[in-house]
């Protein structure tokens, strides 16, 4: 399974370094933070390190409903020629959907990307909604819009949905039935599952995404789409990446800020909070979660399995590492999980995933027996959601 950098604010040289180290396989650029005038040069730099890296750009058209809001925070998105403000009612017209596809694809095919992510809107709450009808129309019309370009690259439809859409099983399955039997489908899907955060600067493990039904149905999306011949790229999948790859996902992605590890439409609204940067943390594969530098210091001597035993561990020895190291350690850890948990056999992968969840629970028990209190971000409740998520997925996938 492949792992991509989820690009965002303040990339510095993190992506280049991740590519150079061979711990990521490519990057999904954010149109909000990557300028059209810079992208060709940035891609060339990446390709110096790895010629075969996968380079994509998320056009982020799903933010179009936010464009007219007074507290919208769209960054450089409005500088791209394809981006404009739309009202939902406008997009009910197929002509406008076609125009957005045409305008976006025209720009994207002229960039040195390795595959094209086509635009779509965000489905916030329900697959039985006007947004879902509009989104399906974008998906249905992507291939024909792209065919006019006579471009040999793969084209992916964006499918960006709120976590609440995954909670109504009947509506979700009906949507799945629709998109898996399209007459003229795209090559694959770029999936984004959005959720709110319980509080600012909290992590994926404490987010609304960590709900058994959400995890199970995100897995089911990967499973059914890949079963039906689609290539599935998961945006902002962070620690869930191997869970999605284990059931057919082609790639996952994560980045250096919380909002690049978990997708939320809140990112397009100006935040009222400010203040300190989050603490630099260490992603421990044994607990499938992040802990702070000081927590790791306290635990490692007594529970050695908290260390991944990978090269970036040394950056955490003795002193808190530089902030730019944190994401490299994250990529290294997730790439290692992908390697260990994802094989060609789905049943074997599910067993391995279940085993890794059991080990995480046992590691938490060990830590707890030592009387060490972990920071709120590292609380173990989400492990139960992971376990239940796998169980629910197996039932829904009739495995």
């Amino acid at each position: 399974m492949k792992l991509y950098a989820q690009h965002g604010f303040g990339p510095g040289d993190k992506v280049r370094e991740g590519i150079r180290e061979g711990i990521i396989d490519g990057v999904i650029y954010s149109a909000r933070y990557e300028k059209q005038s810079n992208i060709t040069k940035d891609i060339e730099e990446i390709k110096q390190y790895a010629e075969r890296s996968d380079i994509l750009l998320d056009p982020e058209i799903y933010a179009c409903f936010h464009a007219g809001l007074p507290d919208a925070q769209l960054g450089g998105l409005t500088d791209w020629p394809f981006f404009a403000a739309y009202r939902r009612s406008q997009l009910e017209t197929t002509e406008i959907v076609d125009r957005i596809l045409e305008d976006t694809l025209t720009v994207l095919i002229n960039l040195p990307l390795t595959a094209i992510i086509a635009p779509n809107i965000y489905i916030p709450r329900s697959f039985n909604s006007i947004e879902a009808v509009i989104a399906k129309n974008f998906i249905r019309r992507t291939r024909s819009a792209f065919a006019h370009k006579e471009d040999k690259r793969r084209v992916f439809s964006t499918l960006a949905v709120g976590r609440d859409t995954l909670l109504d099983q009947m509506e979700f399955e009906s949507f799945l039935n629709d998109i898996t039997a399209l007459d003229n489908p795209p090559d694959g899907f770029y999936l984004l599952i959005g959720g709110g955060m319980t509080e600012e600067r909290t992590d994926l493990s404490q987010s609304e995404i960590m709900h058994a039904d959400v995890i199970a149905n995100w897995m089911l999306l990967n499973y059914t789409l890949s079963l039906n011949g689609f290539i599935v790229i998961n945006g902002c999948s962070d620690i869930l990446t191997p869970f999605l790859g284990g059931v057919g996902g082609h790639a996952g992605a994560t980045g250096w800020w919380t909002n690049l590890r978990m997708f939320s439409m809140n990112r397009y609204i100006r935040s009222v909070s400010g203040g300190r940067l989050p603490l630099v943390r260490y992603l421990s594969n044994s607990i499938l979660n992040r802990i702070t530098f000081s927590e790791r210091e306290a635990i490692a001597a007594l529970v050695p399995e908290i260390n991944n035993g990978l090269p970036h561990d040394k950056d955490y020895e003795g002193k808190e590492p530089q902030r730019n190291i944190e994401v490299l350690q994250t990529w290294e850890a997730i790439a290692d999980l992908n390697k260990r948990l994802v094989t060609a056999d789905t049943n074997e992968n599910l067993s391995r995933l279940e085993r890794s969840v059991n080990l995480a629970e046992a590691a938490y028990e060990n830590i707890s027996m030592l009387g060490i209190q972990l920071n709120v971000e590292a609380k173990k409740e989400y492990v139960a959601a992971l376990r239940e998520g796998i169980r629910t997925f197996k039932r829904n996938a009739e495995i």
Partner: protein
Amino acid sequence: MEHIPDINLLKILLDKIANLTFVAQGGFKAVYKGTYRGETEAIKVVWIPQDLNGEDLRDEIAGRVTREIEALRKIETPFIARLGTFLPQLFKIGEYEYLIYSEEFLDGKNLRSKLQQNHKPDITELKTLAVSIFEAIRILKAHDLIHRDIKPDNIIALKDNTRPFVILDLGIAFKLHGSGLTRNPIYRPGTLPYMAPEMFNPHFRDTIDYRSDLYSAGVTIYEYASGKHPIAKRGEDDYTTMYRIVKVAPIPLASHRPDLPPEFCQIIDQLIKKLPALRPSVIDTLSKKMEELS
């Protein structure tokens, strides 16, 4: 078939058809073998009931025949029976009305009769069967049609390498996006043990697609391979069978046929999943996977 006509009356009526002999019968249809304009063909005699109970049965049967003929006229594939040269005509025999037309005569056994003889197919035969059915479904899909009655009784095995298996009886084929020819909302066309779970959804006409045929194909191939129906049990009532179709997971095919390649069994098991999205829907890929099996 009710009110099956006397063959001697038929011979008089169809005097241009020579050597007329009875072959088989179904619910509303009897099939004869005969020679018309020098060709041996299957002569289909469909009873058109009087609509005494106001249940639109007459229109239903007439609609079926019309669809079958229209579909057969358009479809060009060796894996679906072809329309014959005797064009549809209405006949009155005694007090009953019949629609009579012809299809090509296929000289072979259907899979049901082979099952009854305890035939145990090998992987080569099963792969050929699977690819033949997939190809037929692919062609039907290209014409916006679903067959809705794929089952061992409707598949003929021929001793012809270019068309080893042929699908019959498009009588209840369904034109997607077309008018709903079966108006009775309670009526579900098809044969219960081979019906896909989504056929029991109250809005099934809005939701079914060719994956219902892939499901029936999976059930048929499973039964032909193992000699056991994956869902229905002998002697149980229709409601229990319906419950099983919708709720109960079949035993994996490999438990009945451990000698078959696991990949083959997995494909067939996957085709009979309850949720259509869980059935592999790219027919070209399915056929390719089958052909690549050793």
